[in-house]
């Protein structure tokens, strides 16, 4: 129950916080307007041909209300033609002017062309921080519930213990099969070694790795680190046996079977010593 409430609060808070972040949406410059580029295809006559030419129009997307820009008549949808007499190739050319800088905008609305002089103020945040703060608080509460719910569930279910038993089985299989490989390797052809690894070891490696988090839950991180250090070294050694066998290097394969066996045995010893 606590876990479900925690999930709802965590994700509700996160989504609400994301909404608070994007709802105000636009990064307003100190000019209190937001510009964007719109790609358009303009049809022009060149000689006897009518061809389409791609153009970028700089469009006013937003105007803060109230603001000087709003009072001076700029509205969303207006197309900016020139700034300080220069034609614009993109909205980036306006950039974010420093506070106090005055710029003259020539803009088009319908067929009419107008001019307006704007002085930049300090850029400001449009994010609703109180809303955002409440959302974050809800998420933090959700995380607390989620964690305590998980701890309680782990205590009650005994799931980790059962999974650990299964882990021990996989690790024992690995040790026993690696030992058998070690004993019989001298009589095996390289391709038989490959087949043995793929058929007798691969599944147990995968299953043990999939259930490894149970070690942390039951015995803590130190034990987990020690077991996984040896397990991974053992798996890597067996992977090397595979590569060496595929290339026919039997001495290398033999040496690394021994090494892999040592690591897997040590991983099992550490796991058993905590049982």
């Amino acid at each position, binding site marked *: 129950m606590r876990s479900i409430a925690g999930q709802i609060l965590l994700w509700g808070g*996160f*989504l609400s*916080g*994301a909404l*608070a*972040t*994007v*709802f105000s*949406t*636009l*990064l307003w410059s100190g000019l209190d307007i937001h510009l*964007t580029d719109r790609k358009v295809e303009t049809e022009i006559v060149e000689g006897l041909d009518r061809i389409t030419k791609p153009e970028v129009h700089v469009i006013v997307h*937003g105007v803060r209300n109230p603001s000087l820009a709003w009072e001076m008549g700029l509205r*969303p949808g207006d197309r900016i033609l020139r700034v300080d007499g220069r*034609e614009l*190739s*993109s909205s*980036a*050319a306006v*950039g974010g002017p420093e506070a106090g800088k005055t710029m003259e905008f020539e803009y088009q609305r319908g067929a009419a062309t107008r001019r307006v002089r704007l002085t930049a103020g300090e*850029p400001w945040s*449009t*994010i609703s921080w109180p809303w*955002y703060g409440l959302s*974050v608080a809800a998420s933090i509460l959700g*995380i607390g519930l*989620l*964690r305590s719910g*998980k701890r309680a569930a782990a205590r009650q279910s005994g799931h980790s213990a059962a999974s650990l038993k299964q882990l021990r089985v996989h690790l024992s299989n690995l040790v026993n099969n690696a030992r058998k490989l070690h004993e019989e390797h001298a009589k095996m*052809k390289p*391709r038989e070694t*490959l*087949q043995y690894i*793929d*058929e007798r070891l*691969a599944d147990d490696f*995968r299953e043990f*790795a999939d259930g490894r988090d149970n070690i942390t839950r039951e015995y803590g*991180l130190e034990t*987990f*680190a020690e077991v*996984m*250090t040896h397990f*991974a*070294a053992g*798996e890597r*050694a*067996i*992977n*090397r046996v*595979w*590569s060496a*066998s*595929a*290339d026919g*290097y*039997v*001495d290398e394969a033999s040496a*690394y079977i021994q090494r892999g066996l040592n*690591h897997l045995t040590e991983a099992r010893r550490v796991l058993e010593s905590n049982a």
Partner: protein
Amino acid sequence: MATGNSGKPANDYGEILVRHGPYPEFTWAAVLVGWFLGALIAISIAYAALKLGFSIEGSELAAILGWGILRGLMRRTSILENNINQTIASAVNGASSGIMFSVPALFILSKSPGLESVKDFNVPLMVFACIAGAFIGLAFVIPLRKQMIDFQRLPYPGGIAVAAILKSPGAGISKSVLLFGAALVSAIVYLFTTQFGANDHPEYDLGNVLGFPGRYNLVFFLSLMTIGVGFLSGKGGFWFGAGGFICYWFLSPLLSLYGGADVQHLVESPGAMRNEIYRPTGIGMLIGAAVGGMIMAFPLIRSAMSALRKAQAGGGSEAGQDEMPIKLLAAAVAGGAILLVFLARQSVPDMTFPLAILMAVLGTVWIWIAGVIVAECVGRTNWSPLSGMTLIAVTILIVIAHSGLDKPQTIVSSMIVGAAICLAISQASDMMLDLKSGYLVGAIPRRQQIAQFVGAWLGPIIVIGLMFVLERSATPSAAEMTDEAFVMAEGEVPYGIGSKELPAAQATALASVINAIVDGNVPAWRYSAGAGLGFLLAVSGLGGIGVMVALGFYMPFSIVLTYTIGCILRMIVDKSAGRRFSEEIGIPVAAGLIVGEALLGVGFALKNVFFAETSGEAVAMASGGVQSLLNGFC
């Protein structure tokens, strides 16, 4: 183990010649072929990055070509030797993405009034900074191998694909057929979609066909490689998709209902929504998630370090000898940081010592944070948010430098330290990906780590040299510039890097961002709010979702959608046919899908280098699809 072959007849593996003696791994042949292939791939991809605006990693190509050269021509017989070759080659190539995103911005900015002097930066210092940055990045990320690969077992889909190539000589005929068959299909589909598609970015607008409003952005990226990456990530990739769906299927529809008129208008342009809102929010979330993730993972990192120290203590056990010594790496970081102070101090005449120390220290800290972010993103999804991380680095550096320097000197000093950071991040993600391949083929990590250092120094020399050659070759003489025909439209870069000839799309974008940052126009609030949200998810205890959801905000939704197809396919196959089937059949096929498209992308880049006059347009068309994929510049 990445693969298994249950039930297969023994003869599928073929007869294998028995050999005795040491198994070749770190050999001169691997080093020389790695340098050669790395230089070839770095030149190709760096040129493509300037010309076409994309950059890709070259591990797959290096592995395939290495296979051909080492096995075919030189009669070498070692999977692990080829692994060292591809590690070195991809380390050399790491410079192409790191440098081409950052340094050309100086050439572009130098063509603006008042900033002419920025192109006169100290070139040897820049090369040195890039090499130092690469080494610091490696020293920071190498100790994380144990945590990310041994403990967390992040999938690194690109690493799995490279391992599949490396292992193909011994994997048996059926797996090789699956791998190379899928690669062929992927290459054909990629060729078809890029050559016959309506635009440079092969996409399918299903939303338009179904009559969905534009805000839902139901556009699929036509790329089998993306499906392959999603398949290899499996259900672990779920939260990446969730991030994209939250943006375009939850937030955008709500904004279209309740937002202001301007917002409602913007929502119908998903590309603009991404650039204006979701991407900056996603960058902030990535940072917050990384910081939160590091706090949460601190006990695990401490345990990993402790296990490593224990293994290396007193001469070290076998496992301890497999890793580079922690003390050596710590010394490399400290030495690199001191070197960065020196480089920052020398970067421009007016740089003060305290300012240089501040830039170097913050730069070093950022390398660590960004290295962790990128290594985890690549590990979970194969995509690296390199451009976002570089953006933050440059922003921090400019804000610091501008407090004591004029505009041109601010830009030059920030870009020299920034390029070092960019290289560091690029090398960090490449190293982790290679270490994953190495794990799967049984390579010794220490040898691969040394191989990465052996390759990392060469890339900056080659790529910066290439950049100057291209800048000069595309710059007209003084007489040509006074010619009446030499008339440029306002706002266009007239010649060299940044001009129509060499558009350098990524560096051009960075140049405009640098201008905006110097003018104080940074979406800082959105970064901050995003960071808070990312932090929350990271500390929620739901492992790794912070970075994944953040990356979903950050990436184009078309890629997220196609990637999600791969994730869903994997879940269906796992459930219906079993995980063994997924690993036996699914993984070789998915790896093949990645390999085919990546190879063709690099192939087009190579073609562009050697036949630039005739093929540039074709390459531009054909390579667009790769643009957003393996590059990380999305």
